[in-house]
């Protein structure tokens, strides 16, 4: 029987007086260099979806000179099906706070922002209280734990745009600008918030970093397998008997076990058709192909990604076209409108699918493929580039059933 590995998940951590801040104290004792080395050694990768090595990011940022530096915690959790950051913010905000402190200390920032999705009213309340309590108990601002480390934290509420989950769009949003991606380079590490060196980390990544530095969980960094270390929070949803938030060790559990053991299998005796492994910006995994250990590399090998950890199980009772329309509508509405491939491409895809649904006539697979490639190869930001991943994978796998046919990505 498979089981969870609990590090990030656990009892509520809300009372600042009961929390020891062992990780940050540990880091303050070790110094910045060694702290970063620990994170590098842990092979921690970003948990927001892009999987960039966290230690490397911190190291690069720590080496950049700037008038000031910023650490930004990306809590704009907008990928449909994802609710792990919400859990961490609502139930374990002290862990998040500690992660922010750690990262800020490591890169040499004395100002941090946490950008929380606007709809997360509870999380915003909780974290506002945590910041206030930390300041009151002299855990923020200056001379933190009797060191020279000082940190100011500001909470910013998102205004409801999916694109602001993209780090450069998020920075624009904090600056009061329109939520749209920036041209890279310069990367945020060089010129980020208010043109200063900035590290943007996902909530879960910061909590993992806190685990790595936690003397009580020294084994955390050794969990998993090479290339996929530590644990991952999974947001299981869809046609499952036991949907919810789970924490698993990388490489030690298969997708099959996740669906059928952890989540209790498919609801109401239905059969599984496919799994969306990491939110709707990832390509689906068919029901036949679930028997592989959960890791970054296993999904990459399958042309997909574990994304944000939003695992959505889809049974055979659904109309594929409806699912595609749903996802397409989402991307059409949520493109920031800046680059032509994403804005116009997603609009046209939605139109084509809608017409197909209404008329039932043959669909122009070549046209979908042309538009799909245009978006993937030429869109301005990662969100745009991956906006057609799910729809393309549906057509590739179930083209015959849909009477569409053909490979989408050239």
């Amino acid at each position, binding site marked *: 029987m498979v089981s969870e590995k609990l590090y990030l998940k656990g009892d509520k951590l809300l009372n600042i007086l009961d929390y020891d801040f062992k990780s940050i104290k540990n880091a303050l004792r070790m110094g910045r260099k060694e702290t970063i080395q620990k994170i590098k050694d842990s092979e921690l990768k970003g948990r927001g979806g892009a999987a960039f090595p966290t230690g490397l990011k911190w190291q690069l940022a720590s080496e950049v000179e700037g008038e000031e530096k910023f650490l930004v915690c990306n809590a704009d959790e907008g990928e449909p099906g994802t609710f792990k950051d919400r859990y961490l913010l609502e139930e374990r905000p002290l862990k998040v706070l500690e992660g922010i402190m750690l990262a800020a200390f490591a890169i040499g920032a004395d100002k941090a922002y946490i950008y929380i999705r606007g709809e997360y009213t509870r999380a915003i309340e909780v974290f506002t209280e945590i910041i206030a309590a930390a300041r009151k108990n002299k855990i923020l601002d200056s001379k933190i734990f009797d060191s020279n480390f000082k940190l100011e934290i500001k909470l910013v509420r998102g205004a409801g745009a999916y694109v602001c989950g993209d780090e450069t769009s998020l920075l624009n949003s904090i600056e009061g600008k329109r*939520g749209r991606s920036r*041209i890279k380079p310069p990367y945020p590490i060089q010129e980020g918030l208010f043109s200063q060196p900035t590290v943007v980390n996902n909530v879960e990544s910061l909590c993992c970093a806190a685990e790595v530095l936690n003397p009580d969980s020294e084994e955390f960094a050794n969990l998993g397998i090479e290339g996929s270390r530590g644990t991952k929070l999974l947001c299981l949803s869809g046609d499952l008997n036991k949907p919810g938030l789970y924490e698993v060790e990388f490489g030690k559990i298969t997708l099959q076990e996740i669906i059928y053991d952890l989540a209790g299998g498919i609801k109401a005796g239905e059969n599984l058709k496919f799994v969306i492994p990491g939110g709707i910006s990832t390509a689906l995994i068919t029901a036949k192909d679930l028997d592989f250990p959960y890791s970054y590399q296993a999904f990459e090998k399958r042309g997909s990604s574990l994304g944000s950890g939003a695992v959505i199980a889809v049974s055979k009772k659904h109309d594929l076209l409806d699912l595609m329309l749903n996802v397409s509508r989402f991307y059409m*509405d949520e493109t920031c409108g800046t*680059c*032509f491939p994403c804005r116009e491409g*997603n609009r046209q895809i939605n139109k084509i699918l809608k017409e197909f649904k209404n008329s039932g006539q043959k669909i122009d697979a070549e*046209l979908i493929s042309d538009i799909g490639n245009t978006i993937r190869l*030429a869109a*301005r930001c990662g969100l745009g580039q991956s906006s057609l991943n799910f729809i393309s994978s549906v057509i590739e796998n179930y083209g015959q059933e849909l009477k569409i046919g053909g490979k989408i990505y*050239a």
Partner: protein
Amino acid sequence: MLKAVIDGIEMELKEKMSILDAAKKAKINIPTLCYEEGLSIYGGCRLCVVEIEGEELLKPACATDIQAGMEIKTHSKKVRNLRKNLFELIIATHNIDCQLNCLTCSRANNCELKNIAEDIGVSKMRLDPIKRGEGIDNSSYSIIREPEKCISCNRCIRKCEEVQGIGIFTTANRGPETVVTTFKNRGMGNVECTNCGQCILSCPTGALHELYQKDIVLDILSDQTKHVVVQTAPAVRVAISEPFSNQAGDISTGQLVTALKRLGFDAVFDTNFTADLTIMEEGTELIERINSGGKLPLFTSCSPGWIKFIEHFYPEYLDNLSSAKSPQQMFGALAKTYYAEEAGIDPEDIVVVSVMPCTAKKFEAKRDEMAGDVDYVLTTRELASMIKSAGIDFLNLEESEYDELLGVSSGAADIFGTTGGVMEAALRTATELITGQELENIDFDIVRGLEGIKKAEVEIGELKLKAAVAHGLGNARRVMEMIKEGEEFDFVEFMACPGGCMGGGGQPISCADNVLEKRQQAIYEIDKQKTLRKSHENPYIKKLYDNYLEKPGSEKAHRLLHTKYKARKI
């Protein structure tokens, strides 16, 4: 220096150069749409994407710096196919249909989209046009917006914000509802728009154009009861041939006059004449202010875009503006008084039409303070279109002369068409009038050229005149801030458009490189060829004062040739 390969061509290139610029060096044209030289990089249209060896995703050439060892393919099959597909997506949003079609478009003969289609070899169109149902914005006296034609390239936004320093446009909404609009969708007539029309020059489609009066003017020309007089601004004669010849820098003053006569104007006069007059009135005002300790610096008031700018953003400096009307308005006032009397025509029957390189002149003519001076204002583009529609073979026309009374001008008036020109014309006259001696060299090179802000100290007898020249409203703002911070000037020339009037928002949309330089050379060439080169020596100006206005700054001159301005809100 670094080495890179573009389309198989090995190149040695400077660091920090975009792939787009590097390709240009290799004589490779990469199609662009949202890119415009002089504006910030937007990276939105993605038409300039190229393939970089070893990278799967394509990269925008405008926004990607070339790196050592890069192997770039600018026109590979992958790239070409993508551009074609992308172009289909763009065209679908441009909404071409029976109502909005290419034949009736303001950009029918210089459409950037059409040029791009040709460049990338578009061969099929599979997508239906998308109707957004946005209405036309006709709230402005100068500029019309047709949002249905807008493809959201953001060039107008960036031009207005970055070059002109104003920012009346913005992007609103997201997703497919993303549109370019004005603040709270109020319309161009209800925001701080200066009517300069620089956005029109940047628009790749027909989404922005002037408020057309060409058809009304054609109608009036066929009304035998009206006596229709026309005036042409200095910058028109060096640009009017561009839509016919597709090259810049030709002087076609004589053909312009002939064409206007053929179109049926009863008298063809020159705004240059009232430019000379402006020098007399404004120069007198300057000398008076200097001598009597009046408000300095004195600001020029010829550019209606600049006037609206100062009214919105620096109303506390309105008293620094010369009270002299602009040459266009002076002309209108004189045409309906002096000319009417001299020619024995009832002013009620006179219709005054202007041909201007400017869209803001349309607004100026409608100002309450000067209403009735000028009846209709045509841009250089509109006149070119009228000439075409009248079947006139412009380039091969014989030359004719302006009608005399309000048509003779000095070279000093010609240079009003370029940045620095009003200053130079004023310096020529002021120096001679103050010192009583003839200038040895009348070319004031110190105020020439295309530098954004020029400062000069000019010795006029015992007086050291501190002068500044600014063109483009971004530069105007910079000079205003210098003044605010205490920098002292006596006389400042402000022009709303980059380059001055020759770069005006009503000029032909450039088809040539370095168009401003070429137009400017032509303007100075006209001045050089003239024997009469100083405003105060214009015999018809002398005649006007002797017979009608008495002297510069007289009570009558003030009544006809001077005006007031008003503070406007932001």
